[in-house]
């Protein structure tokens, strides 16, 4: 009989070896799949790398993909620090974008970008924060599961965007095609060094979140609350207040990511613009073990995988589904390694005699 048993604390070295091992195992398993499909795995891997960094353009595209991942992961990490499972990053992303778009469509066009963009950003942060605050209040008041409520609120947010896109906010000049009008110049985040300025915001946020968690009193309180709520209460912390402030920050960051994506990339709002980023960011946040600097690295690596495999599709004419399969395998192994840093399988001998075993 095989049992899953919690391990003694794995040393940092052990844990890291395990992670590296699982990455190698992932590459090996994916290589077998590629060979079965008739592709040379070495070519596939080198093409992924080339596709993500081979030219300046591809590098810029990789950064474009990394920006929302970094910011969303940061947002998720703040609430996860206190064991508040925010599965609602996707929804907060959309309401953030929605609030920014509302201002973009309703404020006069002659407002300069230096005023317009901060206004849109503020609206997005507030909207995203409130979207995350609501499940937190339900949790505090009624003890509801934040995992479920934040998850469900994603769909409410997305359906709102769909409703507006197919209805009231539909571009009247689009011949009935369900899309919203484009933003005007003053509503679009400008480029710096060839990439939209969201990369600067992302870097600044990495530093700010790092300082918040590691150096500030609130960050300390969040961590204590996450480790043990009773302890936090015992030492006299106002746990409700800490929780609510932290989820406001968490949702606000996700909302900011939505505003950046809609303004800089989509230049409008659509109900498909996230492409599941809010969920991918949960993975990157966890792989980075909720550490802000690690989030930057992991998100970039993940963006390389995304950009590289989209390149793969055209470079080798690998079907879209196969490229996604590759990503899935790599993720599966890497996530599994996290499990094995904490648990192990043990084979238990049956204690009963032969007669009892039927």
């Amino acid at each position, binding site marked *: 009989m095989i049992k899953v048993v919690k391990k003694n604390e794995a040393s940092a070295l052990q844990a890291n070896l395990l992670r590296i091992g699982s990455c190698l195992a992932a590459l090996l398993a994916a290589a077998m799949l590629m060979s079965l499909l008739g592709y040379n795995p070495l070519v596939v891997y080198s093409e992924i790398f080339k596709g993500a960094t081979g030219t300046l353009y591809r590098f810029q595209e990789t950064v474009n993909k990394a920006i929302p991942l970094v910011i969303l992961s940061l947002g998720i990490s703040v609430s996860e620090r206190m064991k508040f499972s925010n599965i609602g990053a996707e929804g907060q992303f959309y309401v953030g974008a929605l609030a920014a778009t509302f201002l973009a469509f309703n404020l006069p066009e002659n407002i300069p970008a230096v005023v317009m963009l901060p206004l849109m950003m503020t609206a997005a942060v507030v909207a995203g924060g409130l979207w995350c605050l609501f499940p937190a209040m339900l949790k505090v008041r009624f003890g509801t599961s934040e*995992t479920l409520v934040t998850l469900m609120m994603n769909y409410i947010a997305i359906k709102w965007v769909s409703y507006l896109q197919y209805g009231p906010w539909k571009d009247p000049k689009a*011949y009935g095609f369900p899309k919203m009008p484009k933003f005007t110049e003053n509503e679009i985040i400008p480029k710096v060094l060839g990439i939209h300025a969201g990369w600067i915001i992302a870097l600044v946020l990495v530093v700010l979140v790092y300082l918040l968690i590691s150096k500030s009193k609130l960050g300390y309180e969040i961590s204590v609350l996450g480790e043990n709520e009773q302890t936090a209460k015992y030492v006299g912390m106002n746990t409700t207040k800490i929780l609510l402030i932290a989820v406001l920050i968490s949702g606000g960051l996700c909302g900011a990511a939505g505003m950046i994506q809609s303004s800089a990339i989509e230049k409008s709002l659509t109900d*498909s613009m996230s492409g599941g980023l809010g969920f991918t960011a*949960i*993975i990157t946040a966890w792989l980075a073990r909720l550490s802000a600097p690690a989030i930057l690295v992991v998100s970039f690596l993940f963006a390389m995988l995304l950009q590289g495999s989209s390149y793969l599709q055209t470079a080798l004419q690998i079907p879209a*589904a196969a490229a996604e399969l590759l990503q899935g395998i790599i993720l599966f192994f890497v996530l599994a390694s996290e499990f094995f840093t904490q648990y192990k399988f043990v084979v238990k001998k049956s204690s009963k005699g032969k007669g009892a075993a039927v």
Partner: protein
Amino acid sequence: MVKKALALLLAAGMAFATVGCGGSAPAEEAAPAETPAAEASAGIPKEDIKVGFLYVGPIGDEGYSYAHNQGRLQLEEELGVETVYVENVPESADCEKVIRDLIDQGCNVIYATSFGHGEWAYNVAQEFPDVYFGHGTGYLQGDNFSNYMGRVYEARYLAGIAAGMKSAEGKIGYVAAMPIPEVIRGLNAFTLGVRSVNPEATVEVKWTNSWYDPTMEKAAAVELLNNGCDVIAQHCDSTGPQIAAQEKGVFAVGYNAPTYNAAPNAYLTAPLFHWGEFYVSDVQSIIDGTWQSQSYWTGLATGMVSLDELSANCAEGTAEAVDAARQQIIDGSLFVFTGPLKDNTGAERVAEGVQMTDAEMLSMDWLVEGVIGTVG
């Protein structure tokens, strides 16, 4: 921990769930940009040409993207040029990225095949004046940017004849994607075809707001069947409506590609595209250095569209009626949108004897008499 692991698992699952997004679309307003943009190009030698195709769905959709891919294969076979394609390209900013990726990888001819790709492709085209662009079903035009479409409404009129002759109840259902002029035009042409042989018949429309969504398309068809329809037609990219018809023991008209095998007991026929006709001539003109920006819109006469072979499920006499109408359309004696035409609120839209112009057809936003439903 368990909760976290669960959540993570859930999240990972969702991350890979794809967003159904769909496929074909209209042509538009040929009028304003049409003439002066035409500018002969220097051309590209055949061996240096690399053509990139953007499909809105998977090539295995048995519909719109499949039909474009057939065109791509024809292009490879007839001209021997290099081609690449990307499936599932959304009609959002991702589309612009895919085009830039393709150009980055050396493509110098780009065909964006879905209506919603248009603006994104147009933006990129202005940045890359040396790359040739074609936008399927669109209306935008520029120095290096053509649009192309088939007059599939002609084939839809013929399909309407087959459906009208088959429907005993005189109630036909129509699963439609987006309420844009192309789809409305097709629905109207189909209805006119139906009523040319079955004057009291109605065509009830349901919108899916997606080009390719097998589940929703089938569900819409089931709803129509439950309302008593005994023939289902479609302007969407999956075979879901045809399968629904077969399950109910009634009949269906497909779209884009011959899909008899998907529902052999239900399938009557389907309006088909032959995109290769355009792709071959367009790329040939690039090789020859005679390429000009254009609004390409041809129909039955050039072979750009056709009606699939009629199946044995069709009513007796269908072949004769369809052949006669096809001949008249090709020789010009029958024009689908000729007055008097009323919309389905009873208001007159086209006066007796008047033919609609291309510009009017390309911006059609009303439903002809006989259609049950509204735009959108």
